[in-house]
């Protein structure tokens, strides 16, 4: 934006050239691996392409079908339910964890390390381990203790399967958000706390009036990241339920992969992916705009 203020036609300075030299390859890469696939996806969305061989153009039929397809509708509902619950749960727990880990407690650094471990593990590995826990260990515990709702595998019922996925997703997702909150808490200067102590604020008031407003930018970024990750949920579904039972846990990404690659709906699912991309962009944009306005600067 700065450049437009300069007079037009002025030759590029040495600095500009360096910036351009850095920018252009990145821009090209971004175009090749992001924009081009998007345009191609839209193009395939207009066809009945199976992913291979010959195909015909079908106009906007795929896009119209998207809005009447029960399975796509259900997958959107599930994904949003999952994303909203995940975002609330993950942010709440990781904020509490971060507040705790930011105190001067013994073994603080070791604890921070341990809480971060789930994030390093691959989603599929974690999923398969939890799948075993849900199928065999929890029901065994349920049988031993006589707790009724544990006796059946959580993954086998349409009512509880999504909760199991939330548990696994949250277990993994909390780590990253906690780290971001901790770094946020460390940007709040000591003086502010001292000042508020002099004013007699403590406890909840201190948190809600001082700490939280000051880490608002981190809250925004966490909310956007968490929401985006949850909307794209895939690994957990793949390893825990494969969209079952009764197709009750099919997320949008899973459906796109499953029917686009495995089934012969490459064209239709390309249309789905294109629409989904727009939905995510809109949501992220709204979140940034809404929350960005509430950020405080010292």
């Amino acid at each position, binding site marked *: 934006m700065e450049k437009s203020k300069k007079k037009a036609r002025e030759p590029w300075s040495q600095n500009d050239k360096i910036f351009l030299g850095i920018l*252009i390859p990145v821009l090209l890469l971004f175009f*090749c691996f992001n924009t081009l696939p998007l345009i191609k996806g839209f193009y395939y969305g207009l066809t009945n392409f199976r992913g291979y*061989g*010959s195909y015909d153009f079908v106009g906007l039929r795929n896009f119209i079908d998207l809005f009447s397809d029960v399975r796509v509708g259900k997958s959107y509902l599930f994904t949003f339910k999952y994303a909203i619950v995940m975002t609330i749960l993950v942010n709440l727990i990781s904020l509490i964890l971060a507040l705790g880990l930011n105190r001067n407690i013994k073994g603080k650094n070791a604890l921070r390390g341990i809480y971060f471990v789930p994030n390093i593990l691959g989603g599929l590995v974690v999923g398969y381990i939890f799948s075993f826990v849900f199928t065999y260990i929890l029901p065994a515990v349920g049988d031993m203790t006589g707790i009724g709702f544990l006796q059946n595998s959580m993954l086998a019922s349409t009512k509880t399967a999504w909760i199991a996925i939330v548990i696994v997703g949250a277990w993994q997702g909390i780590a990253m958000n906690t780290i971001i909150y901790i770094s946020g808490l460390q940007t709040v200067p000591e003086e502010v706390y001292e000042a508020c102590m002099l004013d007699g604020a403590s406890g909840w008031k201190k948190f809600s009036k001082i700490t939280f407003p000051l880490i608002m930018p981190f809250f925004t970024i966490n909310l956007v990241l968490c929401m985006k990750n949850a909307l794209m949920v895939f690994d957990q579904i793949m390893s825990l*339920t494969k969209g*079952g039972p009764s197709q009750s846990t099919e997320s949008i990404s899973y459906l796109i992969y499953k029917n686009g690659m*495995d089934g012969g709906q490459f064209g239709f699912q390309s249309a789905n992916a294109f629409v989904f991309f727009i939905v995510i962009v809109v949501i992220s944009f709204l979140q940034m705009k809404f929350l960005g306005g509430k950020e405080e600067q010292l």
Partner: protein
Amino acid sequence: MTKKRRCTAIFLVVATTMSLLFSGCSNKKNKDGKVVIELVQYKPEAVDVFEALEEKFNATHDDIELVIDSPNDAMTILKTRFIREDNPDIIGIGGDINYSNFLDAEMLMDVSDFDGLSDIKENYLSTNKDLEYVPMDGVYAVPYMANAAGILYNRDMFEEHNWSIPTTWDEFLQLCEDIEAEGIQPLYFGFKDTWTCLAPWNAIAVNLCPSDIAYQVNSGNAKFSDVYEEVAVKERVLLDYAQPNPVAYGYNDACTAFARGESAMYVIGSYAISQIKSVNPDMNIDSFVFPASNNADENILNSGNDLMFCIMEDCEYKEEAYEVLRFLLEDENVQFYLDDQSAVPCKKGDFTLASELDGMNDYIVNGIVADYQDHHYPSEMSVDAMIQTYLLDNSSNALDTFLARFDKEWERYNRDIIAKVQEYQEKEE
């Protein structure tokens, strides 16, 4: 000068990126000048067999190098390669909807001039004809191995309790009652892996429904809800004799449970035998045809092409590819495969079948077989998940909901094919 240099720089960047995108095209000869034939087959459980065959082939052929790939989830990998237009020469796939789609997309070569075709059993060749959306000229696949689905049972357990093999539906239910009375679990299901819901479904449907029902429906002459009602009812009855909460367990769990003697029978195909034996190598397994009908003579063995070879349309070395197929079809190599995989050969001749298939032998030898119904279902329609949904649905109108949904979704997912079939028929008239 600077402008020129800038242009060159931009050109170089673009060229590098483009070459990154379009790499992957390579000619198919190796450095010794041998023709490389690449075969991708979709049965990862047979990887050892194919590795041995590959070695044997390369040791005996000087001018061809055979490369066999047996990846996990091969269908997805194959389709991804097709999207990249990086096709292998030969693909080893099952006779299912994917074959219909590849054929419809004009990906496969007509191999009707292949001399080995005369050695293949006719019923397996005609099974492939049924998979064509609209009848086509030519032969596009060489059936290699078939599988057979029905009920596997624990032979030792049956002998110990003197249970006999049922030939009608009523006898089968009685047998389940008898087994249960002895305190043994009659059946075990792994319905968490939705595709296993199709194993009983296919085995029952093959007895009760016409084999060309999909074509009939696509032509507008029949409805699935009319023929599938009995199938759906009978599959639900099976749940009464299975472990509680069968959707909690997957295919591996079910195979393991059956191998450990936790159930007396397992409704699945012969393809599960190697998996079961990997848990319990000494297990004495036998099988019988699913007696879905109350008239014993009506029972048909559920058997379809489990592995067949197709040559891709763009393969440059047809003769060399034929040579590979001839090699694979040599009696010795077919028997080698059979011994390892408990499969059913599609080639005519005297082969020793695995003892696990004793109970189905008559049907195999006499050709009383029909293809899996699900080979005609589009995979994106997820009939397996629909059946799972139906089995989990405890409301009183579950059956009607399921059948109505089946009819409706069939039309939705087969729109292009129905149009194609009806256009073809109008042309014929």
